[in-house]
């Protein structure tokens, strides 16, 4: 499965829909999209991973890279993920402590707004 990327703005937060496999082959495209969004001054990001079928450490690296870029502008990068097999990789690497991980895009946005 190839990687499909889409994004839209909701309540001032940029939501990125990711579908397919994020691996060494496709991760560069996600990295480019995140860099592009930050360059265009989107510092509040939610990455929706509900349709991600595969994620490896290359993919984690891109998400961490994105997080660091938005934080440099006091921004945020939250994740939407309920899939156990994807969550497992965040747990193994300890990244559940680093990312806000939510059950839905709405929940992620509400939580982020509440923190402001």
């Amino acid at each position, binding site marked *: 499965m190839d990687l499909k990327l889409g994004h839209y703005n909701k309540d001032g937060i940029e939501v990125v829909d990711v579908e397919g496999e994020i*691996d*060494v082959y496709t991760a560069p495209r996600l990295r480019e999209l995140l860099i592009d969004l930050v360059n265009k001054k989107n510092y509040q990001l939610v990455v929706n991973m509900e349709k991600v079928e595969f994620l*490896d*450490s290359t993919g984690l*690296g891109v998400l961490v890279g994105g997080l*660091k870029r938005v934080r440099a502008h006091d921004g945020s990068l939250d994740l939407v993920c309920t899939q156990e097999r994807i969550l497992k*990789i965040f747990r193994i*690497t300890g990244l559940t*402590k680093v990312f806000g991980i939510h059950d839905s895009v709405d929940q992620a946005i509400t939580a982020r707004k509440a923190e402001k």
Partner: protein
Amino acid sequence: MATVEVTFTPLPAHVRTARLVATAVARRSGVDESLLDEVRLAVGEACSRAVEAHRKHCPRMPIRVALTDDAERFEVVVTDAAPADALPAELAHSSATQAVDGVIHQLPPGVGLAVITGLADDVRISPAGAGTSIAMSWKRHVDAA
């Protein structure tokens, strides 16, 4: 069922081929469906790591993935030919969370190894020729083909 071996030049696309083969052979070898995701991920991590090392050090050398099974276990060995000098540092820098506070925008190279170790219930990392081999194994049902 005996050995299947896949060798490939260090291109990211081939990591997908290696994952595909490893998962299919593991299934046929009788590895539980619930473990196949782990096989896919661990083999992918080991191959991604090898591809990156080869692109840096020996882009023309192939990476080797050997799939075997015995009565009890299904084993995957990923062998690279890149100088293993960096391995100790890699094993020392396997914390993904530290990277978040650091200045670089990449995860430390050891994170892939940390993921593998967290997934396969038996992992051995050892020198192999000029390079490194990562052996991972999973339980198989002895009644399978």
